[in-house]
């Protein structure tokens, strides 16, 4: 009798355990999600080994979308971690510092002032912080702090603090919008930074003229938060420097920042105003901004470059490159540079530049080439020699002004197949690459089906005249780029009509 009872207890315990584990997984998947990668900012911080961060940088997207930590590390060996989230309310700074201090011991704290000119206390901006922080006393304190500040200064009618402690009831209906980032770690973020791709044109002189704007009042609550934080800094003990990253906001905003910078300086703290150094940074207002608030990846690279030099000069921080304890940062260097290469590839429109880029990043890629029509009028000897650097040897024939079919597959820098059509015949390659069936076909001028690069069952090429190139990531099979260069004439027009979602 006792045995049966014991068995029942074990049975139910196992069941209970299974259910609990399933729920924990459910809470993880059906959680916070947004398009500014806030989850990863905390996650990647927690994943770092302890006490390796030299500089912590707090602020809103004026830090997150500007500073590329892996680049700083690559150039200077200094470890910067931007604990920065879009529209993060300023009154969270002190507790975020506390969160940072749990696992890291930065010598310098940089605090960006961007958010002080905005009234950013709201449900989404609070949740970006509280839903992504690890469960801890600090999180509870953060919820209490942010919600009480919120209700004090910008009260809303429907408010229940419990929803912030346990946020699953809010997100359970996200089952309708689940995406990759909910299930696996966000791979588009590199120590908080993610690649910004938009471009918006600004008039540099007009923007810089606003720098002399007269001081303008900031939202009352931000004044309170600023003073509160400065009081905290007085007794903090570590070096705190305020920053002002470059932007193209309107005159009123510049006026507000002038006020803020003066107030901070009056309290005896430094403000590093990068708007004064845009020439030194080399920012191009035609290409480097996504909008008035953010630089894109080109602008961020320049700002990061400048920041790297300044960090070395201002703060005398050690160079950790080569130190095995800092391997995490080393890995992000590789990952980010690869991601940047892949993005840059998709932006190139010049054939020669494209080929050179391919040569530099051929490891880790599969490159599929199929041609259609006459290549020779546009394909120069220069192009041919660069193609040879990829390992393709039969390309000389293509520089002749005659119709030849041609297809090739290069995997991880090694040429797997290269076929030049005999005379006017078509070329077909059907094979398996990394366990995927691929079929390439290239038609001579008679063949009206043009060319085709089929991976699996899906057509991936642009199906245009000239060189059709498809580049995929070798490990994941994801399409990095698909492009065609019309080598029928010297212009070698770049064609990317068709885009593929992975």
């Amino acid at each position, binding site marked *: 009798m006792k045995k049966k009872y014991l068995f029942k207890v074990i049975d139910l315990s196992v069941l209970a355990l299974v259910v609990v584990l399933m729920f924990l997984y*459910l809470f993880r998947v059906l959680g916070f999600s947004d398009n500014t990668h806030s989850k990863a900012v905390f996650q990647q911080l927690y994943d770092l080994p302890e006490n390796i961060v030299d500089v912590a940088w707090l602020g809103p997207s004026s830090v997150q979308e500007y500073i590329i930590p892996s680049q700083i590390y690559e150039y200077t060996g200094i470890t910067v971690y931007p604990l920065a989230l879009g529209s993060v309310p300023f009154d969270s700074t002190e507790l975020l510092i506390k969160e940072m201090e749990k696992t890291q011991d930065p010598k310098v704290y940089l605090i960006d002032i961007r958010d002080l000119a905005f009234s950013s206390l709201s449900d989404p901006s609070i949740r970006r912080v509280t839903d992504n922080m690890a469960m801890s006393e600090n999180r509870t304190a953060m919820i209490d702090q942010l919600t009480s500040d919120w209700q004090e200064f910008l009260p809303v009618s*429907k408010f229940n603090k419990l*929803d912030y402690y346990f946020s*699953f*009831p*809010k997100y*359970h*209906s996200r*089952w*309708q919008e689940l995406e990759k980032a909910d299930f696996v770690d966000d791979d588009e973020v590199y120590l908080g930074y993610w690649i910004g791709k938009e471009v918006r044109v600004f008039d540099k002189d007009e923007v810089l003229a606003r720098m002399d704007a007269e001081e303008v009042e900031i939202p009352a609550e931000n004044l309170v938060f600023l003073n509160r934080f400065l009081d905290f800094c007085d007794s903090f003990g570590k070096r705190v420097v305020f920053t002002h990253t470059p932007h193209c906001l309107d005159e009123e905003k510049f006026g507000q920042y002038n006020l803020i910078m003066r107030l901070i300086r009056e309290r005896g703290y430094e403000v590093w105003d990068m708007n004064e150094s845009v020439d030194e940074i080399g920012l191009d207002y035609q290409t480097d901004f996504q909008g008035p608030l953010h630089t894109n990846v080109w602008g961020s690279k320049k700002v990061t470059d400048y920041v790297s030099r300044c960090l070395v000069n201002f703060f005398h921080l050690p160079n950790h490159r080569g130190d095995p304890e800092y391997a995490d940062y080393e890995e992000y260097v590789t990952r980010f540079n690869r991601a940047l290469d892949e993005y840059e590839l998709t932006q190139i429109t010049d054939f020669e530049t494209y080929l050179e880029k391919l040569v530099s990043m051929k490891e880790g890629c599969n490159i599929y080439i199929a041609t259609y029509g006459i290549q020779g009028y546009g394909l120069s000897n220069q192009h041919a020699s660069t193609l040879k650097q990829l390992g393709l040897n039969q390309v000389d024939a293509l520089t002749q002004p005659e119709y030849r079919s041609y297809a090739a597959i290069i995997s991880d820098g090694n040429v797997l197949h290269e076929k030049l059509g005999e005379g006017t015949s078509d070329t077909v390659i059907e094979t398996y690459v990394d366990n995927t069936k691929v079929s390439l076909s290239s038609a001579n001028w008679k063949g009206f089906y043009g060319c085709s690069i089929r991976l699996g069952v899906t057509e991936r090429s642009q199906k245009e005249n000239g060189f059709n190139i498809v580049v995929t990531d070798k490990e994941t099979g994801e399409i990095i780029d698909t492009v065609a260069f019309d080598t029928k004439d010297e212009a070698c027009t770049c064609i990317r009509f068709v885009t593929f979602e992975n």
Partner: protein
Amino acid sequence: MTITSLNFFIFLILCVTVYYILPKSFQWVELLLFSLVFYYFAATPLTFGYVALSSFMAWGVTNGMERDRKKGAKASDMKAWKILMVISFIINICLWFRLKGRAFLSSTLWGINQIFPSVKTVELPEIVAALGMSYYTLQIISYTLDCYWENAKPQKNPLKLLLFSCFFPQMITGPISRYDQLQSLYEKHSCSYKNLAHGVQRILWGLFKKIVIAEKCGVIVDAIWADFTLYRGAYIWIAFLLYPIQLYSDFSGCMDIVIGVAELFDIKLVENFKNPFFSQTSQEFWQRWHITLGTWAKDYILYPVLKSKGLQSLNKKLKQKCGKKAAKIITTALGMAVLWFVLGVWHGAFKHIIGVSLWYWIILMLEDIFKPYSEKINKKFGFKTDEFGWKFFRAARTYLTYSFGIVFFRAKDVPQAFRFLKELFLSFTKSRWNPWVLFDGSILNLGITYKELNVIFIAILALLAVGVLREKYGYARNWLDTQPVLFRRTIYLALLFAVVILGAYGPGYQSSAFIYGQF
């Protein structure tokens, strides 16, 4: 505190724990205390006075009657008790009318005013009613009558009787139990894994129906009803056909939760639904829908009326004049009229007199009258009446009949109901004909997403499956119990996660009250 809220579940867990830890002889006291606590949080506390009043009146009358009966009292004394009993009924009914039937009074006056404009309409000021007044009032009346007819022994302990009146799972939407069905309230119960497991499973299933199906259907139905000058043609038909499912899921889902809750305490409550949409006739429908109300009305209204001297003498006279068949039809019609009128009034608004009482009175009479003729026709033409197709047709017909009647239930008043029906019939005219909205994604404008539509569809299939299993095995659970344990657990876990993930709850949702909680 509604019974789908987190607070209620915490309350429930605490209650169940206390219930099985403390000595068994106190269990009924605990149930009473739980009911009082529940009442405090779920309703306006002072209105409990009405419940207590009804309960103590019944206690007094029944025990007084019994005492005198035992002593061998004179007929005149017994008559006095009978009068007191009737007075207690009148008090109960008047209270009900003043508190709950207020809308009914004013809407009836409005109805009369339409015909006789000289009759003034009156708005009585609202007084908050007791929770579940329509349910416990009937329950108390049934107890009193059962004692009067000596079908049951009166409860000597007034607090125990109070528990019968206010047992908290029943306070929202019933069921309306008889006194002899709830004797287990006073018995001793031991904790068993089976009861707890079954209770939890039942609650889960009820939650699934309420917050997954009913809420989501409600979004569609409410959107269309909000503006059926905008949503015409095919939309009207969507609302028309979907509302019974919403109502069923809401009401029977609540019943499942309530029965599951009682099961946690090892109390068996009687079923209120038995696959109503499988009914072949409307008469069968009312034996499967809101069963306890139907049986209450049959036992305490219909039978006394049919057996009354008045109706019996009328029957005799009619038999002589018009023959047996006609006599039966007329007397039945009269009895039914009284029954349906009471049911319509119970539902609390004048529109229900039209949509519930009048409509079903006509339908059931027609069914009764035409039954012999349709049987003859079926035989003559050799229709395959035993086949599934025939049964499906009859069930569909019953369903449509019900959809028609509850238009009045859903509408806020009679004119709106008629406007809806007008739109329904006109939907085939040129200006409203729009079947393409079913295909071109317009439905997504109603506030529901394409994925949620899929969920509704699959959930309705699940409802069907469970219904079929219930027809065959008594309870779908019985069939599940015969299946391998891994399969069983997979099903229940799937149900749990369906409720947790798909349910309509959390900030951003207004947890809507149970539709039948208004009674």
